[in-house]
């Protein structure tokens, strides 16, 4: 396959690049870089109908096309552009090889676990007060203790889950 630009940066270089983005977002614009926030700010469209007198959607999170929602849209376009330029853009329903060699070729299974997993990340991010971007990186960058507590929790939850999931995998 042709590679017009390098497909991958080293994790250190890509991380440093993200670090610059986070520094600009935090210091110049006064916004944490957020992944989970966008969905919280969209949730009110349904939530306010579900629980009309909810103090959460009235006072705690805004509803609408907020800064975080625009960041999410931008990140989709950014990844699309990066993937397009390195010839990695393609529609697919499944992850690459590892998933199916461990859990079989069922798309339904992958999509169900992806759905369940993303519900948990969004709820967990809400409870923690941020996600990998808005708490671990943005919080770590301003030396907030909570960021490091969150990272410890993330690995404490993720490691046993991965080992249980892969216990019977053939891979």
């Amino acid at each position: 396959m042709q590679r017009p630009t390098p497909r991958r940066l080293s994790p250190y270089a890509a991380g440093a690049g993200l670090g610059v983005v986070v520094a600009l977002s935090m210091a110049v614009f006064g916004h944490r870089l957020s992944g989970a926030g966008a969905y919280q700010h969209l949730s009110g469209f349904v939530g306010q109908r579900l629980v009309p007198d909810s103090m959460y959607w009235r006072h705690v999170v805004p509803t609408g096309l907020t800064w975080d929602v625009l960041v999410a849209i931008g990140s989709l376009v950014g990844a699309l552009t990066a993937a397009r330029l390195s010839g990695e853009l393609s529609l697919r329903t499944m992850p690459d090889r590892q998933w199916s060699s461990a859990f079989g070729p069922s798309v339904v299974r992958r999509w169900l676990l992806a759905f369940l997993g993303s519900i948990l990340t969004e709820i967990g991010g809400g409870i923690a007060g941020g996600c990998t971007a808005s708490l671990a990186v943005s919080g770590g960058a301003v030396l907030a203790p909570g960021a490091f507590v969150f990272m410890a929790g993330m690995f404490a939850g993720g490691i046993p889950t991965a080992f249980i999931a892969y216990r019977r995998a053939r891979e």
Partner: protein
Amino acid sequence: MTPWMATVAPLAIGFGFGWFLQKGGLSRYETIVNVFRFRDLTVLKFLLSAVVTAAIGIRLLDVLGVAAEVPIPPTAIAGNLLGGVVFGVGMSLSGFCPGTVAAGAGEGRLDYLIPGGLGLCVGAVLYGVLYPELVPALARWGRVGAVTFADLLRVEPWLVVALLTELTALGLYGLERGGSRPSRRPSSHTDSRSRPTESAPRPSDRAARSA
């Protein structure tokens, strides 16, 4: 900020976010899940590199006088920890986090766009419904507030940034040194066809199992 800037700035910030997630390979299921299996430490390296660079960057922007009011995420030990655990379980099952869902979707991954995006929306609504029950209960434990290590230790932020940078560099250097030895298992990137076939029994495995 003008309305024009208020639209273009977050889109540009997001563009950079998605760009570096994709370039770092973070928008792949394998990269995320394999950090939890100790097979591929890309996530850890990426995360720590981002934290240290952003920490130095924010200090520099502050010195240059460009920095506005920098937001400090609040620390509440019970919430940060418990939320982190739930988050980690979800991340390990799905192979993504809320930020990488949009990036993966941009790469053309429908398992990110459809069940991923839908799940995040459902999760956000569920969290909103559960909020009145969950949050007051958790907030009682270990609530420290919007503070930094520099506040707590009453030292210059630069000192903590220097310490964090040094510790991270040392830790990552150690990881690279330790990880440079040939691994026991083939990495996930190698083609499955190049591995020893499953049909050929490996005597050492047999012996180890029967022992």
